[in-house]
């Protein structure tokens, strides 16, 4: 059983997001990058499956500039068996269809039984790459996965539906699924894991080995959203703030 996990490095929830000069993205040198949240759940789910079977391999895969090797090493430290870095300096928020074609070209020879990805990235939020990759590699697919049960030739997944409903779906293998956050408790790397990660294989693919030309959609401009709503920002010492809030509740919203 071989599971490939797509992990993406994105600005963390606390990161600054200053817009770059040509307004096509953010100034990356000002941002602090982390592993995308739902991807860390996908990684944990893959590791749990391989651990419970007692055999197989988890391969952590990331595309981007050299900085993404940090999250591949993090995945290796958490217990992934090896890593693949699709090295590119392409900037900005990418087009999922072209990205998925690049992943397909780079990963086809791996013959993964399963590909896991996070539901969507916390930067571009396209929510497609893992599913399109599955489609291109002729795998069955499912999105919004909140639970998995692997049998010999099938993968049963629990898919989240709307408004608190869910549904079990059985997929033939190979399969590519995208995983919703919250379905497990992602582990922290142990000290032993961190030491061991240095000895694990991290294969670097240069862009010429996976490049696919074309861009099906592009971002013209990134901007700070303008709000139509007038927000009263309440400032001051905590006591001043609380006094104004009580006033609002009593006299403006009228709920006290």
């Amino acid at each position: 059983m071989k599971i490939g996990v797509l992990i993406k490095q994105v600005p963390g929830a606390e990161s600054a997001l200053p817009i770059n000069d040509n307004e096509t993205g953010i100034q990356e040198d000002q941002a602090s990058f982390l592993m995308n949240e739902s991807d860390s759940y996908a990684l944990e789910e893959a590791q749990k499956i391989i651990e419970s079977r007692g055999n197989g391999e988890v391969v952590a895969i990331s595309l981007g500039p050299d900085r993404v090797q940090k999250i591949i090493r993090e995945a290796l430290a958490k217990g992934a068996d090896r890593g693949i870095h699709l090295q590119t300096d392409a900037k900005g928020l990418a087009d999922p269809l072209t990205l998925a074609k690049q992943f397909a070209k780079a990963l086809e020879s791996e013959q993964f039984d399963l590909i896991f990805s996070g539901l969507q990235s916390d930067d571009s939020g396209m929510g497609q790459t893992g599913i399109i990759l599955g489609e291109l590699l002729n795998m069955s697919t499912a999105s919004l996965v909140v639970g998995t049960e692997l049998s010999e030739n099938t993968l049963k997944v629990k898919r989240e539906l709307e408004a608190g409903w869910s549904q079990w779906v059985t997929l033939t293998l190979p399969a590519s699924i995208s995983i919703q956050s919250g379905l497990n408790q992602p582990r922290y790397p142990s000290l032993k894991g961190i030491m061991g990660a240095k000895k694990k294989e991290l294969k670097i693919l240069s862009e010429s080995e996976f490049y696919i030309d074309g861009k099906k959609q592009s971002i013209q401009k990134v901007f700070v959203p303008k709000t139509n709503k007038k927000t009263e920002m309440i400032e001051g010492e905590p006591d001043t703030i609380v006094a104004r809030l009580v006033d609002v509740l009593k006299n403006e919203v009228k709920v006290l």
Partner: protein
Amino acid sequence: MDILVVLESKNGSLHRMSREAIVGAQSIAAENGLSISALAIGIDTDQIASSVSGMNLDEVLVANHNLLSTYSADGFAECVKQVIEKENPSLVFVGHTYQTRDYFPKVSARIDKPFIPDVVSLMKEGDFFVFTKTVYNGKLGSKVVSNDSECTLISFQAAAFSEENIESGSASTRSFDIELESSQVRTSSEAPIQEEVSGIDLSSADLIVSVGRGIEKENNLQIVKDLASAINGELASSRPVVDAGWLPSSHQVGSSGQSVSPNLYIALGISGAIQHVVGMKGSKNIIAINKDADAPIFEIADYGVVGNILEIVPKLTEAING
């Protein structure tokens, strides 16, 4: 065919976000001279087709097949692909529902056309449509264009358009034959289940005190519960609090939880990621307290406080209780 709107059935009725997608199509059709067709696939097609027959549409296509009588990503993707290849729409509109998120990327792959998801508005600039979509979890916006001149798939975020603006008219119905083999559907589904029956109906609550990641740990939840009881409000949360197991999922507000529209929504330590905001932006009054001055929740709040909820909330409760 210019615009194809793909419809979705929700418990036998037309999904609200399908109606909103129709409004989106109608908002650009007349001035650009574009025709609109709608597509009902497999499930409850009689009810779905009749629910749109009184709308201003050129045509309703109905695709029935025994393999489409329940949802599968493979079957639905193949159906939409065949309709697009035969009818050549230049724009395909759909609501950004959970079902869309599951199978529209497959349509994109199968026809090799771009899918721009979760769009909040569109406008024509010159000869091109420009689509606005939030990025960085709602903290920034982006303007996206398709580079494909033949066909582009677009899904709209909940409430991108108001269903009240739907134009009435009359639409004829045409059945569309789908060729589908059982070997093309690689999945089988069980009946949907509801995890836990919700003890509270937040959708009718008048006052909601809602808590997010900023509460930091489970032990701190008491201060939020105390505030909720001081104003006699219901306790709610964003997804991270439920994911951490600190509150049952019946308390969750957002795209995977309940949609609420109370008189007052107090958002405590909630950043305002788009998945949460779609569930509560209809609230009449919003008070937000968050330590991050750039949190997107402040864009929709009426009153905002940049500060530590662990410090302010207990003081507020104390002041209310007198």
